[in-house]
């Protein structure tokens, strides 16, 4: 699996290859540990969850945790599980789509053009990255009240559009991976700005877009959102799961099942997109 193809690099010794493989495997284990732990935890029967010292792998796998989760879900009153899932999905899909579009449009301009104020604006964005969310929560609440967005999904979706981290990463990717010559060539051929952006730039930065997508999905999908939303039928899935899981020590099984549950969407998206994210970002369309 992680074996080095021997002879690929003739100037490196076998010992070097083995060393690299060992380092990669050790740290690979670190990285994969949480995933393995969550998956195993969801299938552990209650007595195994409390074993000390804890075991990583499950001995007698059971689906009781998961069926308990659904059982509790159905008991929760008149709001169905599907409704919570739909709310979260809506917020995630619209928020992510909007964020990618808005951030890449702004990033394209900042990366490839100079106009009055562009440099200052980017500096401002970098500064804004550093500010912690908690303090902004009250002023943000006041703004939402003024806009009349309290208790609507807009309050969760729209602010996600203008998240500065997306712009920051996108601009850096565009700056380093799109040659100016390409844009000039398109201009000479008569392409307008909109066309250049959607037909040339966006396909080229696909890996960066997918990376951003993962970020955004992961942030929005885990959004509890109770600050702005009070109507039960508008609340999100993480909120519902958290409520279920917080029922004391007897709910430990349910809680570990819900962790697995929350993980499914981001991990699936990542699996689908991963070859694009982690494979080459060097395909700039111009051969040297």
């Amino acid at each position, binding site marked *: 699996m992680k074996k080095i193809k021997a002879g690929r690099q003739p100037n490196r010794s076998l010992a070097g290859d083995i060393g690299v493989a060992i380092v*990669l495997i050790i740290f690979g284990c*670190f*990285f994969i540990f*949480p995933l393995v732990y969550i998956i195993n935890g969801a299938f552990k029967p209650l007595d195994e969850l409390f074993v000390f010292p804890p075991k*990583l792998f499950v001995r007698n796998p059971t689906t009781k945790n998961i069926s308990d989760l659904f059982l509790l879900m159905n008991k929760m009153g008149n709001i169905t599980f599907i409704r919570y899932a739909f709310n979260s999905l809506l917020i995630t899909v619209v928020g992510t789509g909007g964020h990618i579009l808005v951030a890449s449009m*702004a990033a394209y301009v900042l990366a490839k*053009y100079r106009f009055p104020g562009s440099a200052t604006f980017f500096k401002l964005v970098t500064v804004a990255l550093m500010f912690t969310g908690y303090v902004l929560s009250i002023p943000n609440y006041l703004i939402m009240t003024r806009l009349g967005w309290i208790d609507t999904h807009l309050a969760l979706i729209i602010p996600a559009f203008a998240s500065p981290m997306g712009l920051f990463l996108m601009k850096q990717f565009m700056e380093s991976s799109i040659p100016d010559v390409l844009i000039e060539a398109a201009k000479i051929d008569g392409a307008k700005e909109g066309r250049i952006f959607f037909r040339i730039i966006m396909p080229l930065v696909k890996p960066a877009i997918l990376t951003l997508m993962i970020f955004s999905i992961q942030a929005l999908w885990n959004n509890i959102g109770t600050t702005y939303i009070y109507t039960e039928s508008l609340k999100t899935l993480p909120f519902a799961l958290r409520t279920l899981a917080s029922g004391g020590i007897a709910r430990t099984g349910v809680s570990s099942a819900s962790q697995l549950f929350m993980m499914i969407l981001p*991990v699936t998206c990542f699996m689908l997109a991963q070859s694009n994210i982690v*494979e080459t970002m*060097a395909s700039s369309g111009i051969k040297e």
Partner: protein
Amino acid sequence: MAKTVKHKNLAKGNAIAGYLFIAPFIIGFVLFLVVPLFESFYMSLCKVTSTNGAGFAYKFIGMKNYHDVFFKDAEYVPNLLTELKNMALFVPAILVFSFFMAILLNQDFKGRTFVRAVYFLPVVLSSGIMLGLETNNSLLSGMADIIKKDNSATSITKTLENILLTGEKANTFFEYIIKLVDQVYDVAIASGIQIIIFLSGLQTISPSMYEAAKIEGCTAWESFWKITFPMISSMILVNVVYTIVDFCTKSNSDLMTLITNTLFVKFDYGLTAAMSWVYFVIIMGILGIISFIITRWVYYYD
């Protein structure tokens, strides 16, 4: 990096298109970040009380909140110092680790895609799940207990630590290393994005450069320092900024907990705002200095 399309008659058209493209972001940015930012600054100068409705009443009290942050709150300054110390420790470690990992992952070997995917996993799992996992995870706390127990007796690392620390050259350097080894897991988990950024940077370096260098008789060591390092220097800047930001805004540090508690437990909005602003300004200063230094030797290849 010459980004500008330099024809003068085009410049005006460019500006208009530019503003159009950037307008949605600016609107959102101003509305949801700049305005709240100023509002929170104003709050930090006020005594804020929530009135019975949905509103808040401000009473201007000048710099009193800031005075309280430094002289009245017993925990803030020590927490801040610990946080900065940790940052000085973690940020270089994360950068070196991710750079090293990126170079390894940039090699050609079987199953490369799979290994890279594994290294990106923490990013996917982060925030919600990971934080939950780390705070209420019986396994990790169990492991910590075992390690602690071991350390009080005679474990190898502890003995080694003692030997190193009691030696003549026992100094901060060893403490730094030991602390790093203790927290290698934290470092590894926090470097997912940085690895990807470095990796994408490494892949933009044209192989023909290495070939040319090889023909000229460069050793691999030389081409690393003369080609790889300068070519990736802009990515180093990106990663430094990203790492510092990521580190100082993560929500599970003591300082963050203090700030959150002031907000949600004590309901002292003014004081919270002041605390955040102090932190914000300090981080900004650090970031400004560091990026100023790095920008001076970042090499842009045209």
